[in-house]
């Protein structure tokens, strides 16, 4: 377990929220799906433990950015808790995305100034 710690720490505070919201833009998903999706899309780079998703999910739900509902999965004969993006969540995603962009650009300007000159 301990070997995965650095990656988890590497995930910036608040970033996980944004990733989850972005994932839910494709449609409702349950915790496991969200975790798998983030992992796959990042080419397994963010090898976070799925568990760390749940506090984040519940936090989003408490803030009203997502809503949850128990539904039967289409491929399995079992109920899962599906999270769905709300309008408020969509707005939040836009805000966070633009903030992230600004941040990334700012960091890039400091880190690779040469590229700017070119």
């Amino acid at each position, binding site marked *: 377990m301990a070997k995965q710690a650095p990656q988890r720490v590497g995930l910036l505070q608040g970033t996980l929220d944004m990733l989850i919201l972005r994932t839910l833009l494709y449609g409702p998903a349950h915790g496991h799906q969200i975790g798998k999706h983030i992992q796959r899309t990042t080419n397994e780079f963010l090898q976070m433990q799925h568990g760390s998703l749940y506090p984040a999910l*519940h936090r989003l739900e408490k803030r009203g950015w997502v809503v949850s509902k128990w539904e039967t999965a289409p491929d399995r004969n079992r109920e*899962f*808790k599906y999270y769905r993006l709300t309008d408020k969540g969509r707005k939040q995603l836009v805000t966070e995305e633009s903030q992230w962009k600004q941040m990334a650009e700012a960091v890039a300007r400091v880190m690779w100034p040469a590229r700017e000159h070119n």
Partner: protein
Amino acid sequence: MNWWHINRWQTKKRDADLERELRSDLELEEEEQRDSGISGEEARYAALRAFGNPTLIREQTRAIWSWNWLESLARDLRFSLRTLRRTPGFTVIAVLVMALGIGANVALFTVVRGVLLKPLPFQDPNRLVMLYEADLYEDDTAGFNVVSGGMYAEWKNQNLSYRSLALAQDIRVGLSGSGGQLPEKLNSALFSWDMLRTLGVQPALGRDFTEADDNPAASGTVLLSWGLWKRRFGGDPAILNQTIDLDAQPHTVIGVMPAWFDFPDPSTQLWTPVYHDKPEATMLSFSNHQFRVVGRLKPGVSASQGVADLSIISQRVHNEHLNDPFVFRSAKSRPLLEHIVGEIKKPLYVLLEATCCLLLIACLNVANLLVARAAARRKELAIRTALGGGWLRLIGERLMECLLLSASGGALGLLLALAALQWLMQTRHDMSRIESVHIDGVVAAFTVGVIIICALFSGLIAAFSISDKRILGALHEATRSVGGDSARPTLRKVLLTLEVGLTVILLIGAGLLLKSYERLRSADMGCITQDVISMHLGIPDARYPTSAQRANFYDTLLDRVGALPGVDAAGFVTSVPGQGYGMDWSFSVVEHPPLPQGSGLFALSRWADPKYFRAIGIPILRGRTFDAGKRLDAANEVVISQSFAAQYFPNEDPLGRHLRVRGKDFVIVGIVGDTRYAIGETPRPVQYYPLDAGVETVGTLVIRSSHDLEQFALPVQRIVSEMDPDLPVSDVLTMNQLLGKSTLDQSFNTALLVAFATLSLVLAAVGLFGVDVVHRNATDDRNRHPRRAGRKARTGDAEGVAGWNAARGLGKLVVGTRKPAWKPASCCAICSMGSSRSIRRFMLESPQRCSQWPRSHVSFLHGAHRASIRCKH
């Protein structure tokens, strides 16, 4: 409460939901792991690895939803309650200990606040000062001298610093019987007409004195106290403008004062104008000092500027009267509040210090118990730490536990304080400002503050005694005894030693007070105190205007009282030993060369009848008592006390010499033994003049009998009322009661301090015993003392084991055997003995030296402090 239930229900539902979510997702993960070819148990572990620690996730997720601090507070509270309930013995002891400590402090703080800290209920009380005369001689630093009427008038007319100066004097007056009510003697006060205006007080009913009321020509006026008005006149407003007889002089009731008004004394029941009631000569004299003067400073004028202003006037008057040796040279002042609480202030602060000591002991005690319990719960704490219980959480829980203990202790203590205050109000209604003592918001805030401080103090000591560095060690000790652990026993011993040290200090302080009180009570008054009863009695000048009438009254009275069956002797005197300073007179010795200008002699003076000395048992050492045949103007004899003879006739025989007093010569016919005018005072020279001169009208009747003393009260009263139905007889007290009354303060303070010391002794004992029991229960001491304790246990003597441990602990504390450098208890004892020297000085010296008291108590606490530092080293 409904909200609470809904909240609980929601929390439960959410927990179940989360549980289900985690389980379903974890199962899915497990299935996927199995699909990828991992089999059985291995798949489950892999799933868990990918998922993370479910317990931790659950905790973290729950934290998102919970009302964070409030909920965790509630959880800590629940947990603490459960823990405390599991150990009822510990809880009860700790709560009681806290209740005693907090209760004593709250009660005393309430008194201190009511009496010392609350401003006086007068208008702008900070500008009010009490004024005194000072510097009779060049290097005179004596206390606070009352003011002469003449000097007051000079001050009033010439000063520029005071908006007003007013005058007051305590007296006693006889209120005549009327409407079937008996005559009675009342404590009263003379006010100058502007006294109430100076204080900024209005009568509740009727009007204030006016300048016109306050002169000899005006008709008499009187203000009643609320209590007297209710009691004697049924609270009937029709009393206004009615006339009552005071000392056989008619006075018109012009008003009733508010219930709270009790200046200058709590027992004052009437106020009359001073210039109307006092002879003009007294009011003009510069050498007859008997008044208290209250001044209200003008805005912007400081107290010292005011005093400087008055001192200039005094010095000028002094210079104009160089032939009179008793005119003061300057003035002195102090805030009115200080004057009112002067005598009670120091003892109160001393008692407050004692209760602080007590509280400290209580806190140490609870901390000690907690530390012992923490040691006993070490394993539990170690397991919880291993399972991820945060250090802060553990400290939080410990503090919550302490807060619970001290809060319940505080609640109980508040009840104790209430009861104590009730009791105090009843026993000490004579204390100044006692009526302003009650529990209010500030006291409540103080209580809460004390509770929090206690919780923090004891909680933090206990919390920091848990070090989480030795979890593994603690876990390993699961199979062994904790006997080898040495850190916490040391801490506990330090705490216990501090407790015992503080207790020793309190005990020594109490012991000294007790001892000096006993010495005070056994002081030789110079007269007999058994078999003597005294009664206060006075005839009004108005009805007995001639000296023959006065002398006849007392002759008849004493004859009739002396003839009562069972009376061995009866006498009359202006004041008996123990009744106070009374009056003093200046005199000169006719046979001696005249003294240089500006110096004079004075001594206590008393009027007595010839049989007084025999009645009260003052021995006649030489010569004889007054000749009963010499009466009125022919009464020219004086009897002096032994110290009078020694001081003013050092190398000659005083018998036959003459004293000149107020222009009249008296021949010395006898020398009697010394007496003390107050119980703590050294004997002073006294001159006795014959009552038969018919001058004095008020004094004390003394009856000596070997029979039941109290039985004489009624027959004497009957004789007096037969002689004059309007005369009250008051203060019927045996000499022992009289002396007991005058040492009430000392006995009260001593009793309280002894009570506190005893309490702290009990607390220290509880500390020693309780800690041992808690500790032994948890750790099984038999490992340490297999033979001794085992034998005791075999005989089923569990108490014996604990008792043995307590005794052993005490022995160790006192002697400090284990390590030679460790002798803190004896160090405490030495410190307290050092500080006790100053206490002793306070108790056995005269009241003028009272200023020693606070300093002695600084060292009192300083001793404790030093001891505690030594302990830590």
